[in-house]
């Protein structure tokens, strides 16, 4: 990042620091698609619904959408945290949130992760959601709160 601008700079070294580029969007609806997608597909409260239960595939599909717009590695990174740390895994309708069930869910999530990882590397071999019974995993969203500010981005 810093190499190419360095060559363009005048040789005096007297370039002032880049001013604070504060961009406020106050009063206007934010329109950045990435921001909207991140929020609408990733966040917001989930309602247990019988249609929604059958739509579990869509939870997986939102990851695929991410894979389309984000880099593969980044999306995988997000995807993994995403599936693993979901505190709100339930059985849709059955109120069965016992531990044994959770183990089962974890195994299934691991399998889903692999599928996602597989898809992203194969990129295009799009296995349709087939025989999976989505009735037990309703929401596999992530707590993404543990992400950190960029560590190495400025190297």
């Amino acid at each position, binding site marked *: 990042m810093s190499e190419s601008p360095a060559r363009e700079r005048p040789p005096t070294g007297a370039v002032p620091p880049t001013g604070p580029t*504060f961009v406020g969007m106050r009063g206007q609806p934010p329109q*950045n698609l990435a921001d909207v997608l991140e929020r609408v597909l990733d966040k917001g409260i989930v309602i247990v619904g019988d249609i*929604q239960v059958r739509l579990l595939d869509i939870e997986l*599909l939102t990851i695929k959408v991410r894979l389309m717009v984000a880099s593969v590695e980044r999306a995988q990174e997000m995807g993994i945290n995403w599936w693993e740390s979901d505190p709100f895994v339930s059985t849709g309708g059955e109120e069965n949130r016992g531990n044994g069930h959770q183990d089962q869910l974890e195994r299934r999530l691991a399998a889903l992760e692999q599928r996602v990882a597989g898809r992203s590397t194969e990129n295009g071999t799009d296995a349709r959601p087939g025989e999976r019974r989505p009735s037990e995993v309703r929401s596999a969203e992530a707590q993404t709160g543990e992400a950190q500010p960029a560590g190495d981005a400025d190297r």
Partner: protein
Amino acid sequence: MSTAEPTVVHAYGLVPAGATPAVTEGIDSSDLATLDLGGLAAVVSELSADRYGPAAWRHHAEDPRWLEVVVRQHHAVLQSLVEQVDVLPLRLPGIHESVAVLETQFRSQWDELAEAFDRVRGHVELGAKVYLAGRDRHDEPSGEEPPPSTGRDYLQRRLDSARAREHVHAGRQAVLLDAHESLTRAATHARVNPLQDPALSGRGEPMMLNAAYLVSRARTEEFWEQARTSAEALGLEGMSLEVTGPWPPYNFTDWTWPSDGGSPA
């Protein structure tokens, strides 16, 4: 929408019962209705089951163009709501068989919904992203030095520049954390999200922070003031701050609150 056509009910969000926000239309130009659930009301609209039912979602949900339209329309309703009343946003896909079914579902998790609503009551979400702008006061002219005459010179120079880089890096991290902490203090809660890839953010500069803040409506001025101050500090370290909002509090709807308030570890 004509009753001849099978419909599904799409739910956008929850607002205080009795609120009468003026929102023009929902997805697919549908008419919005508020469904009073006692204390809270769901903002809903009826959509064509053919075009927005489960089968449509399965068919289209991998199509960013279809999804973008639905996402934007869903968001537009919530955005319009949050500018008028407190709102608890619901995630997509939010379709239900009928109003009766939706009501049963909402009631079955009423306590959680009410609790979640209480957490965002009187609040909006503001987003902050920090980008590395590319150059700053640490950048030194590099083209003037003569080429190193000896291997020792060369290594010394490399060592110096590595040290300088580390120093700059640490400085940036400190300012970044300070900015996040200051913004967090002006907010009720904060959440740090994964950094967006340049492909997603649409900007070439690396993203350094992608955070959301739950800010009391009464304190938004204070938050914006703090953002201005932080932007200056970040600017000196070659970083730029972009603040967006107010958003519906999408990032703050979880049942379980992060105990640390979402500060970066």
